[in-house]
Every structure is written in C-alpha cells, then in structure tokens.
C-alpha cells in the first residue's frame, strides 16, 4: 500500500491524508516521490495499491480508479534519478519482483497545488472515500484468506 504526495503542496498531500485515515495498517509506505518506491522491492507482494493526487483538468475530488496500462505509454521519457515516473517504477518493480501483477491506482483529482498544507474540501472528501474503499478491499481480501 503506497501513498504518494507532497504535504507542502496543498492537494498534492492527498496521498498523505489517505495514509493518515488508514491508520496503522501493515505494509503501508508513505513516499514523496515515486523513486522512493525503488526501495520497496519485495518478493511477497500480491497486490499493490497506490494513492496519489492527479492533475487531469477534471472536477476536483474526482476519484480515478486506474490499472497500470491506464497511466500513459510515454512515461519512460524522463527516466532519471530525479524524475522516474510512477509508471516506470511500477514497471521496474514488476520486472524485478515475483509479483502477481495486480496493481490498483487511486488518483484523486486535485484543485490547488500551490504551496500550502491544507487540502481543498473536495479532496478531503475524496480522501475519506478512498480510505474507506481501501479498507473494504483489504477486509475482503483478508476474509478470502489472501492476507493483506
């Protein structure tokens, strides 16, 4: 479970907020940039859930539920230590880990990405919804014996 974002850029802190709302769940990683995920290499991951703010000119607070192929094909262009894209990182992890390949991405449409520590009302609401949805997914997997 990975929550991405920058708490000092207003709605970009959505990932952090979802992490706060999820509380103490195992295997939760809070990261400021996708590159930090390089250190999360694991042989045992069966499901990877990623939460991040997105800027896609949509209605603020809209929740995009994405799978890996949905996040654009040209993301590899900026492969570098400073700008490894989320898609590249996940692709790299998939190549290097014995991973079932199930990746679920929650993108929360932001309203304001200027400097600030406050989420917009719409994004705060969306974060609560995403956190509840993730809790439900985890509960269902646990009930099904899949672990989390």
């Amino acid at each position, binding site marked *: 479970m990975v929550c991405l974002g920058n708490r000092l850029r207003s709605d970009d802190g959505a990932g952090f907020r979802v992490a706060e709302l999820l509380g103490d769940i195992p295997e939760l990683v809070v990261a*400021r*940039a996708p*590159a*930090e995920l*390089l*250190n999360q*290499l694991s042989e045992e991951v069966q499901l990877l859930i990623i939460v991040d703010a997105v800027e896609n000119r949509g209605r603020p607070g809209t929740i995009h539920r994405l799978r890996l192929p949905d996040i654009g094909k040209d993301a*590899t*262009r*900026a*492969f*570098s*230590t*400073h*700008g*490894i894209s989320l898609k*590249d990182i996940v*692709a*790299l992890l998939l*190549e*290097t*880990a014995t991973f079932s390949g199930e990746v679920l991405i929650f993108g929360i449409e932001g309203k304001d990405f200027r400097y600030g520590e406050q989420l917009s009302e719409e994004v705060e609401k969306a974060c609560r919804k995403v956190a509840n949805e993730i809790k439900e997914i985890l509960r269902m997997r646990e009930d099904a014996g899949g672990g989390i």
Partner: protein
Amino acid sequence: MTERTYKVDYLARVEGEASLYIKTKKGEVVDLKLKIFEPPRLFEAFLLGRMYYDVPDITARICGICPVAYQMSSIHALEKIFDVKIEPPIRALRRLFYCGEWIESHLLHAFLLHAPDFLGYDDALQMTKRHPEIVKKALKAKKIGNEIVAFIGGREIHPVSACVGGFYRLFTRRELETLKPVLKEGLQLSTELLEWVSELNFPEFEQDYEFVALRHPTEYPFNEGRIVSNKGLDIEVEEYEDHFAEEQVPYANALHSYIIGRGSYLVGPLARININYDKLDDYTREKLKEVGFKIPCRNPFKSIVARLAETVYAFGEALRIIDDYREPSKPRAEFTVRAGRGHGCTEAPRGILYHRYDVDSEGRVTSAKIVAPTSQNQKRIEDDLRALAPKLIKLPKEKALWRFEQAIRNYDPCISCATHFLKLTIDEEQ
C-alpha cells in the same frame, strides 16, 4: 543598524535539461558547447542570515541523492570555525553515514542510468527485461545503502540527524549491530555486481586527466584529507580558492571550475580510485585485481567499475566501523560559537564538495560558497566531448548521439535527468 554588504556567488548545481551543440567545418569540430539551462538555485543566498545550526539541514536539500555530502561538508566547515573537537566514535559514525550514501548513489547511477548505455538499451526498463537478476541485485544492494542513511540520518532522503558537533542522538553498539546481516549480504551482492560491470564493453578512449581527490594518511577518503592531484597539487582544504576558480560561460547556468593556470580537472570515483588505490581495503583491491582493473586508469567509461569498487569498499568499511564501534560519551561535542571563516571539503559520490562559510559572533551566516562536484566536472566533460567528437561525428547521427550521452553519463552528473533527452545539433559547413 550596522551596514552589511553581502556578496553572493550563484550556486549553479544543475539538475535540469542540457543540450549539446557541435559545429564542424570541413570535418573538423570548430565549436562545442554543453549547454546547461537549469536556473541557478541560489542556495548560498538562502543561507545568508541563517544560524549555523540551520546550515546542514538547508544544504541537505540541495540534493536528494547526496544530502549526506552536503551535510558533512557544511558541518566540517562550521566545526573549524568553532574549533570543535570530535570524539573518534562520532567520526566513525560519519564515515558510516557516508558509506550509505555512496552505496545508494553509486548503484542507482550505475545500474539505472549508466549500464544500459553499454548494452545498447534505451533505459533501465529495457535492461531489466534482459537482465532482471542484475537489476534486482542492484536494487537490493541500493536499498541497504538507503537503510544505512535512514538509520543514522533519521530518514533516507534529506536526513535530519547530523549537526555541528555530532548527531542529535546517541547510537548504541547494539543498534548498529542490527545492520550487520544486510551489510554482509550487500558486500556479496556488490562484489558480484563489480564482476558484472567489469565485463562490459568499454570504448577505447583515454585522456591525460588531472585527477583531484581528497587524500588521507590512513583511510580511503570520505570526510577528511588534503586536496591532492596526480599532477602535483597537494593543498589544505583552506587553500582551495587559491588554486581553484570558477568562471561563468555565457551558454550555461553552471559555473565551470578550473585549476588556476592549468584548466579542467576530474573529480569523482575515477579520480578517487586513481589517487587512493593504496587506501582501499585488501578485499576490494583483490577483487579489482581479479577483474583486471589497474591504475592509472584514464578511460572515463571505466568510471562504472570505479563506482562499483567503491560500493564494495563502502560495504566492507561499514562492517569494519560497526565491529570497531565504541559508544561515544555524548551524542555531540560541546563548543563555543564565535565569529570566523571555515572551509570544508568532503567526497560526495560525484567528487569533492567544497563549502566555505563566514559567521558572525552569534553564529549567523554572513557569507557562503558551495562548489558542487558537477560544477567541477563541467569543463572536463566538455573537454572529453571535444576529444571524442572528431571520431564520433563520423558515425550515423543516432549512434553519435548515443556515444556523446554515454560520455556525459560517465561523470554521473546531477544533470542526469536532462542528459537522457539531450538534444544534439550538428551544424556542418562545407
């Protein structure tokens, strides 16, 4: 109010886009420019008026890959001003901290940015498809480097525990011992990776470099030593600005460093290993011998081997530090703040990182100068490109572009982000 004049040089630590311009005339190169157009980041100006204790945390923000280097150079400079006496265990912990940074930085560059060049892949993803086990080993070992930084520094990127005088908390021997199993694993992994990079196909290319690195009487250098070159330079850190200068070139926001009266020079793993080969531990030297690496090595494409050798060394050194560790009496030394000027120079993964500060009697910064390794290598990178150009411009454009980019990446510059989409323009006049 007392009038003060602050003079601040730009710190052009580049991490943005670069382009390369080459002009040829009748098959000869008549103009070549590596253009860095990332805006200056002005960190030296941010430091003015700040208290000395803010400096390590502000400078750490300059780089997400080598924040420890920025902390260490600034701390050493400030400790000289306050004449701080450091206990040996604190000194050892700083070396351990640096081991973590070299490991994570070197492996990230070597396997995600540089190695694909040698194998004809566009990027690490392509390489991973063909060599998943190698990338997996590299990421595993890199993670251990990050763990060391996080362990000592409180977090893996922009750590927060280092301060003037030592650290904000005490590290027990028992805590450090917990790192040993992963360090042993890292030593094994990095040795295998060293063997692997040594078998890459290196272009034939040598230059008569002036290698510049720190040199310590008994250790492979991290934090301390004299600034030494293979061409006779041997100075105290305090003398840096008597021998090195920076110049602004109109086409780049990165300052070009040079040795006064001589010109470009090379810093980083290749320089360090050429100057300090005898200070490596027996194990690393033995492994280098096995893979056929010899000094002097003047082929910049082999910097990837030097980078891996230093990674092997860093794992071994981290284990030795932990084995010898005795807990310090207190986490940081006491000292009295006073006005003065201090200089610090430590070995960042990419080469020597020079800091100089003036502080007033309260410990407030009145001037700051930071010379990053990438600045120091800029001129040398251009010289390499100039030397390679006559041969490369005869190749098909795509192939030439590839080789030019690879030559830039030999230096692990902080413009790595940009060099992967380097724009190449070749003007050909008949």
